[in-house]
C-alpha cells in the first residue's frame, strides 16, 4: 500500500513537472506569443488594451457639445479631490435658469486612475483615455481644463 502510494507520488510529480515544461517549451518555440511592446520604436502602431486607464477626458462631438450637466457627482466620487467643477447658471429661452458647467478642472497630478468618477457620471460625459505620455516640464501643466472653450451641453441631456 505504501509502495503504491510512493510510486503514484513519483509518477504524479514527474507528470506535473513535464506539463509545466511543455508550457514553457511552447512559449520558447512560439515567438508570436511574445507580449512585450518595443515602445518608442512602435509608437505609431502602438495598440493599448481597451481597459487601459491613462487620464480622464471629456468627449466632445462635432458640434462642440458635451454631455456634462455639471451635477458634480464625479467631484463627490473622487477620493482625492482631483476634479473641481465650476458651475454657472444659463438662462434658457423660456426664461428658466439652468445649471451648466463653466470649467471642468482636472488635476492629472492627483489622479490615481481609479475610474470612480467615470462610474459615478450619470450621463457618461467623461471617460478614461488610453494615453500615457504625460510627462511635462512644469507641474502646472498637469492641471487640465476638460471642457473645450465655447462648448455647450448637448440637447436632450438632463
Amino acid at each position, binding site marked *: 500500500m505504501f509502495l503504491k502510494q510512493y510510486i503514484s*507520488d513519483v509518477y504524479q510529480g514527474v507528470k506535473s513537472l513535464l506539463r509545466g*515544461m511543455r508550457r514553457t517549451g511552447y*512559449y*520558447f518555440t512560439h515567438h508570436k*506569443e*511574445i*507580449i*512585450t511592446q518595443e515602445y518608442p520604436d512602435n509608437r505609431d502602431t502602438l495598440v493599448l488594451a481597451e481597459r487601459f486607464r491613462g487620464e480622464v477626458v471629456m468627449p466632445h462631438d462635432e458640434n462642440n457639445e458635451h454631455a456634462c450637466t455639471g451635477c458634480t457627482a464625479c467631484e463627490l466620487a473622487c477620493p482625492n479631490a482631483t476634479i473641481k467643477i465650476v458651475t454657472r447658471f444659463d438662462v434658457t429661452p423660456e426664461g428658466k435658469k439652468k445649471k451648466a458647467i463653466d470649467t471642468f478642472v482636472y488635476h492629472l497630478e492627483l489622479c490615481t486612475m481609479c475610474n470612480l468618477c467615470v462610474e459615478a457620471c450619470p450621463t457618461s460625459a467623461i471617460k478614461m483615455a488610453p494615453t500615457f505620455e504625460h510627462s511635462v516640464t512644469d507641474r502646472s501643466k498637469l492641471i487640465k481644463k476638460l471642457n473645450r472653450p465655447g462648448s455647450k451641453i448637448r440637447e436632450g441631456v438632463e
Partner: protein
Amino acid sequence: MLSLEHITNAVHQWLYGNLSEGWALFAEFVIIGVLAISLFSILGLVLIMMERKVSAYMQVRIGPNRVGKKGMLQTVADTLKLIVKEGLTPDGADKFLFNLAPFVVMVVAMVILAPIAFAKGFQIWDVNIGVLFVTAVSSVSVIGILMAGWASNNKYSLLGAMRSGAQIVSYELSAGLSILCIVVLTGSLRITDIIAAQENGWWLFKGHIPVIIAFVIFLIAVTAETNRAPFDLAEAESELTAGFHTEYSGMKFALFFLAEYVNVFIVCAIGATLFLGGWMPLHIGHWQGFNHVMDYIPSSVWFLGKTFFLIFVIMWFRWTFPRLRIDQLLNLEWKYLLPISMINLLLVTVIAIAGWHF
C-alpha cells in the same frame, strides 16, 4: 582534415623538440592556463546571454535587444560595468577570507575542467580516476560558498551558506550514485574509456530504462549542486537577498556569477560525457553508412552540441519550476532520489553482470 587533435599534437611535438623537457612542460601548463581562462570568459559571456534570451522567450518576453545586434553585446557591456565597479569589503568582515572565497570557487571550477574531453584527443589530463576526480573536486566548491557566507558578517549570507552546504552535501550522494551506474556499465573511471565504450551507441540508448532513470536523477542532482532554480535556496533573491554573495560587488561578485555558469557547463559536460557519449558521434549499431555520415561532423561540435543541449534543459528547469522549500528539498533527496537511485544502481549492476545492455 584539420582537427584539434592534430593541432595539440603538433604543438606538443614542437615544444618538446625545441625546449628541454621541464620547460616544455611548463610552457604547456602556461598554454593550458591561458586557454582555460579564455574559455571561462567566453563561456561566461555566451552562457549569460543564452540564459537571458532563453528566460525571456520562456516568459513571453523579448529579452536584451539594444546593445549590439539583437542585444548580443549586452553581457560585454555588463562585464565592463562590473569591472569598473568598486569592490566593497564590509566593515567587520573577515577580510582575508572574504577576498579569498571567490577565488576558491573559481579555482575549483578550473581544476574540474582537467579531465573533461572536449574533442577527440583534446583533453588536459586523462587521469585514471576521471569521474571520481570530478566528484571529489566538486565537493570542495562548497567550501568557497561557506567561506563567503561566513566572512561576509551578514546573517543572510550565513543562512544562504548553510543552506547551500546542506544542499550540496546531500545532493552529491544521488549525483554520485547515478555516475556510478555508468561506471558499473563501463567498468572504468577513465573518461576516455567511458567515451570509447559508447562507440556503438550512447549509454542512454544502450542501457535500457535504469540508465534513463539515472540520467534524470543526475540532471536533478546537478541542478541542485550548482545552486540553480528550482534549488536556488542558497541565493534565493526574494528571501535571502542573494544569500552568500549579498555583500559582494564588482569583480568579486562577477567571479561568483561566472563560477555558477562555468559549473553549469562542467556538470553538463560530465553528463554529456557519461550518458550522451561525449565527443562520440551518434552511431547506431552496425549501420555503416549512417555512422560514416555522422563521423563527418567534427567531434568538438558533437561535444559542444550535447553539452549546450543539457545546459538548455537545465535553463528550462530554472524558468519553469518554482523554488522548493528547504524541507521539500531535503525530502526530495532523502525520501525519493536516494532510495530510487540505490535500487536503480542495483538494477544497473544486474544488467552489467548479465550483459543485457547492447
